[in-house]
């Protein structure tokens, strides 16, 4: 046939099918009806850890082994902490104090970066509060 190096695609397919048939006849299989695996709702577990809440296995008393005593607190607390999962994060600094700190902070840090000319803006009042910022002196165009 014209320019035919290998077998025809059709003949190839036929040969493959025949091969499959031969192979499947040789393969062994169980001649049993299909068993339906029921979805069981009983789980088997051989471990006592699920059944009883047991403490951590290492114990030390009256300071005999300080590392083990630390571990005891850690492991037994972890065990109880799993039940209580709601913990609100305590604020170290209240919101009001935070706002107050920020107020004063802006002025002091601003002073550090102000140039000589801007020092006038940061002059302090009698009370020690920073004066409100004056309007900058800009160039005014003469009106003829």
């Amino acid at each position, binding site marked *: 046939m014209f320019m035919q190096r290998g077998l025809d695609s059709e003949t190839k397919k036929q040969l493959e099918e025949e091969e499959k048939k031969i192979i499947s006849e040789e393969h062994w299989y169980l001649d049993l009806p299909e068993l339906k695996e029921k979805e*069981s*709702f*009983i*789980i*088997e*577990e*051989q*471990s*006592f*850890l*699920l*059944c*009883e*809440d*047991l*403490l*951590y*296995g*290492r*114990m*030390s*008393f*009256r*300071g*005999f*082994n300080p590392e*083990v005593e630390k*571990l005891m607190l850690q*492991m037994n607390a972890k065990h109880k902490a799993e*039940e209580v999962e709601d913990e609100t994060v305590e604020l170290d600094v209240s919101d009001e104090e935070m706002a107050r700190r920020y107020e004063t902070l802006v002025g002091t840090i601003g002073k550090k970066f102000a140039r000589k000319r801007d020092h006038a803006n940061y002059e302090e009042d009698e009370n020690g509060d920073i004066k409100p910022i004056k309007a900058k002196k800009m160039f005014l165009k003469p009106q003829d």
Partner: protein
Amino acid sequence: MAEPVSVAAEYLAGSRARAARTVLGQVVLPGEELLLPEQEDAEGPGGAGERPLSLNAGARSRVRVVCGPGLRRCGDRLLVTKCGRLRHKEPGSGSGGGVYWVDSQQKRYVPVKGDHVIGIVTAKSGDIFKVDVGGSEPASLSYLSFEGATKRNRPNVQVGDLIYGQFVVANKDMEPEMVCIDSCGRANGMGVIGQDGLLFKVTLGLIRKLLAPDCEIIQEVGKLYPLEIVFGMNGRIWVKAKTIQQTLILANILEACEHMTSDQRKQIFSRLAES
């Protein structure tokens, strides 16, 4: 004790399955079948007659139940395989059903995945240690299963050392494997147990009793003198105190407390406290 057993025997003679709920806390014998709560309506004794009509009669809610040690699944029922008292734990949160198990007593330990045990190193071959845990075959422990162990930095473990570790593989088809680190790679107290001290064997039930959160024995023992105890779920306990005499007293107390009543125990503790 004879009464519950005779009652159980009568039931067995009649070979009727009892409801698990009614048997809680009673002695059950191997071979008994127990009904789970959902099945009681249809199959309980004296079923017909006064049964409240449920709105969804057809759909029975399938709650997932865990059957623990001493029980096996047998179709839809639980089959008892060990003699002891039937216990139940309500589910804390999430999936319902709870756990049923049999509180039995035995001395022979069978490795269970996740259990913390005390093992004795019996051999060192290549990269693994063979550790005797009291089961049918020694467990294997890789030298990399210690905290901070690398191929160059090997742990200092000799034959005869005591190891506190947990099982990662433990079933009837494979050799048990244990490790001395947790899933995050931290030791958490596992590893080689220190020098001196005394290792002795007790029954498995006693270990569970002593490790219960409200165990009075441990609280009283802790007040005697400074000491350290390690409990292995395979029935092994290691104790250490400042002198040999104190260690021996502690070992004797723990061995004997299984068969003592709480009054006898308090007598012994008060005598010890005086001396």
